[in-house]
């Protein structure tokens, strides 16, 4: 497994999809900063901008991982790896680790870039302790994103199918996040009267769980500088990071690689 990991990390360093995803996210970060700096008639605080590029993180990572991991299947290289690997699970785990590393590198690069550049153009209202906590939560989010899309790609077995599923899921998660966020931000009272759009009870709890389970929902909370249930998010991230590779190992063991 160490040899496969080393080979995949070397491939990641030279991967065009990784570089393009990183470049795309950097461009997005610059665009968002320009829009926030010029579009508002008040001084925008830095906290509004630091995690703003993460709103498109899911789509970018879906494109990167499906192409990067899918190339092994389209080139037939996966069969060579299976010959080298002691066990199919080693291959799955190494692939997931490399994908997560790629996602993590992009997340750290974009967040640090936005934080450093943003300090010159926005009002620095960021509390260091709060930023550190949110940064750690963002690491969890990026690892979960890497796990989800690499598992899907490994189980699809075909690059094109993997791209369709990963990008479709990324758009789906984004729209779900918008929907649940729209529900959760409604207040109980509006203009002094009960708000008809306010949802309470079990439905509110369910929306909250979906919002915290969804990596795009986590990104939305980070970009809004308000994480409602950080412990619950951490718990969900741990469950997904452990559970998804386990499920993938079970299913990949019986998969026909052609």
């Amino acid at each position: 497994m160490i040899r496969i990991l080393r080979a995949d990390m070397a491939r990641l360093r030279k991967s065009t999809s990784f570089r393009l995803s990183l470049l795309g996210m950097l461009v997005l970060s610059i665009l968002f900063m320009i829009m926030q700096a010029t579009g508002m008639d008040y001084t925008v605080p830095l906290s509004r901008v630091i995690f703003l590029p993460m709103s498109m993180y899911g789509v970018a990572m879906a494109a990167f991982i499906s192409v990067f991991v899918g190339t092994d299947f389209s080139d037939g290289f996966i069969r060579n790896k299976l010959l080298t690997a002691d066990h199919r699970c080693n291959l799955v785990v190494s692939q997931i680790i490399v994908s997560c590393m790629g996602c993590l590198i992009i997340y750290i690069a974009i967040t640090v870039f936005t934080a450093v550049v943003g300090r010159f153009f926005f009002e620095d209202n960021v509390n260091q302790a709060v930023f550190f906590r949110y940064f750690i939560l963002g690491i969890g989010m990026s690892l979960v994103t890497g796990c989800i899309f690499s598992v899907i790609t490994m189980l699809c077995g075909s690059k094109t199918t993997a791209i369709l599923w990963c990008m479709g899921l990324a758009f789906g998660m984004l729209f779900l996040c918008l929907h649940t966020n729209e529900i959760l931000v409604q207040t109980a009272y509006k203009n002094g009267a009960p708000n008809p759009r306010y949802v309470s009870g079990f439905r509110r709890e369910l929306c909250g769980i979906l919002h915290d389970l969804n990596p795009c929902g986590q990104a939305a909370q980070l970009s809004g500088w308000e994480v409602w249930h950080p412990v619950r998010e951490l718990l969900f991230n741990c469950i997904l990071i452990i559970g998804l590779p386990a499920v993938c190992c079970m299913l990949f063991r019986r998969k026909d690689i052609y």
Partner: protein
Amino acid sequence: MRKILCANFYRLRKDKFFWSAFLSLLALPVFISFISYQSNLGQDHDPIYVETVLFNLFPVIAFVCAVLIVLYLGTEFDENTVRNKLSVGHTRKEIYYANYLTCITFSLSLLLICLLSSGVAGYIFFRDFLLSRTRITFLILCCILCMMVFSAISVWLTMNIHRKSTALVATLLVMFAIMIFASYLEGVLEEPEMTYSSVTVTMEEVELGEQVPNPSYIGGTARTIMEFVFDMLPSGQAIQINNMNFDRCLRWPLLSVIMLAIITAAGYLPFRRSDLQ
């Protein structure tokens, strides 16, 4: 070119993705109309008209057609069929335009089946029309031209990228980017010219301050340019059709034809000289 067209349509008849999309777009509008009818039953909401249901799936069809075009044309590059076509004597022009016409035909067939299904389901559940027949016919023409532009963009990307997977990612990202850009322009253009200096909410009433110019409102030349770009983009037209906003619809067909000519030329010219590996 006739032989390539015949071969393309024969392939299309057997394409499972096309038929899956065809059946989905036949059933989905009926399902959506039913859900809208059920949720509106007994509620004091705004009335729903047939046109609301008729055009509400239009942006979705654009995405579906973009994906289908990439899957359909990308297979030709992955399996080296394009080189075979060149070997037997067909010119690049014939290959490009045959593929172009095939893709536009199947996009329009999916659009028309969806409009037919939405129209029938909308009439069964809602009965009331908001617009005149002439206006609806004109808007359907706008949808057709807009769909042709979306298809031309997908054909342009797929025929010049030469790899199915890369073309798929590029097409989805481009479609997403133009949708997001059009949504941004819509948000900016919808800002009102005047706003209230203050809003005071009490238990009895809501007190509004005096009206002042809205600092977020963009006027003058900048607004004209933004409106032009918003109408020129096929995603802009799709959003306006979906939102039933027909203020500037009279110029949409002309702008769509201009975009179609530009994109067709932009697609064919690089393909003429590209290296088909």
